[in-house]
């Protein structure tokens, strides 16, 4: 028994792709294409990019019909007003972190609901949404949402009636997509800040719809233990 007992590994196994990334990165540093400090700065910068500009874009579009028209016809131009320059900004800057700069804003209506996926790998509008959530990149989500969209959406807690058309957007070429959801009831007279708060990342991918009171900073539910430990 004793010899069979192995200590848990100190680090998780790393994938071939991670090994490849490290190899290419180290070669690039050796060749002088960038320095290790550059790389660290970039990685840390990328971690700070999040979905707030896209939430702001949606809130502005809800309040201003002219801006909504612009967002739907020219997402790249509309992004400028929320501080994201897809063409010249550091985050996109044509090469990084999104190689392609064609943002399309998909407008939901009361009878049309968009949901975005990339069945190819993980295309995602990173300059305006930040890094994609882990589930978005999984083969499970990617292969099932195109085939069984309603079932997958209901796993996210979104059940849509029959009269709503579900439109899956398979984003596998050079466009990147965000969803412009329908403005929910109960938000009359709200300010842009208030509206932007309820447009969560999941609403922008299309697997959720905004609800008054449901914000990114919601308190997580805490349930008491069924069999609490008595100390």
């Amino acid at each position: 028994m004793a010899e069979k007992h192995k200590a848990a590994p100190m680090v998780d196994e790393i994938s071939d792709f991670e090994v490849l990334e490290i190899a290419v990165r180290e070669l690039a540093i050796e060749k002088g294409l960038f320095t290790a400090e550059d790389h660290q700065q970039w990685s840390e910068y990328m971690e700070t990019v999040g979905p707030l500009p896209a939430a702001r874009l949606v809130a502005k579009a809800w309040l201003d019909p002219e801006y909504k028209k612009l967002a739907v016809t020219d997402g790249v131009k509309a992004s400028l007003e929320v501080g994201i320059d897809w063409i010249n900004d550091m985050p996109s800057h044509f090469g990084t972190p999104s190689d392609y700069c064609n943002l399309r804003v998909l407008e939901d209506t009361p009878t049309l609901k968009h949901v975005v996926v990339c069945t190819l790998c993980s295309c995602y509008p990173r300059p305006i949404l930040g890094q994609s959530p882990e589930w978005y990149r999984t083969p499970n989500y990617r292969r099932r949402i195109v085939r069984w969209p309603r079932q997958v959406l209901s796993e996210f807690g979104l059940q849509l009636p029959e009269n709503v058309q579900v439109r899956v957007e398979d984003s596998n070429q050079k466009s990147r997509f965000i969803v412009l959801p329908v403005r929910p009831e109960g938000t009359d007279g709200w300010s842009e800040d208030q509206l932007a708060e309820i447009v969560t990342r999941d609403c922008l991918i299309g697997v959720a719809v905004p609800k008054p009171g449901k914000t990114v900073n919601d308190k997580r539910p805490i349930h008491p233990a069924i069999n609490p430990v008595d100390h």
Partner: protein
Amino acid sequence: MSKPHYDREHHVKKATGVGDPQCFKGEAGKARFKVGDRVRVKDLPSLFYSRTMVYTRGAECTIAELVYESPPPEDEAWDNCENPEWFYSVIFRQKDLWPEYPDAYSSDTLETELSERWLELV
């Protein structure tokens, strides 16, 4: 023997400050299809690289929008930017992709982008 010269920067030079696919604007010539056309996705062989999903092959769809011009991924994967094509946003009925898709949701659709070479008029 002299060292071969590979131009690895032509794309970055072209796209910086302009954007990709914006940098290929005006290079594809006249578009063969227009919004509203009914088209079928050709079942071409995929040699080495393609972004045309197998589930779309042979299915009929409608052109929703002419989105941009760009070399198709089959060329671009090999750094060949010489023949840009029009890209179309196309909409499929889910029923046309998956015959067993429930009738109750027959209005459900799927949208994706495809380059001109993959499409033919129905």
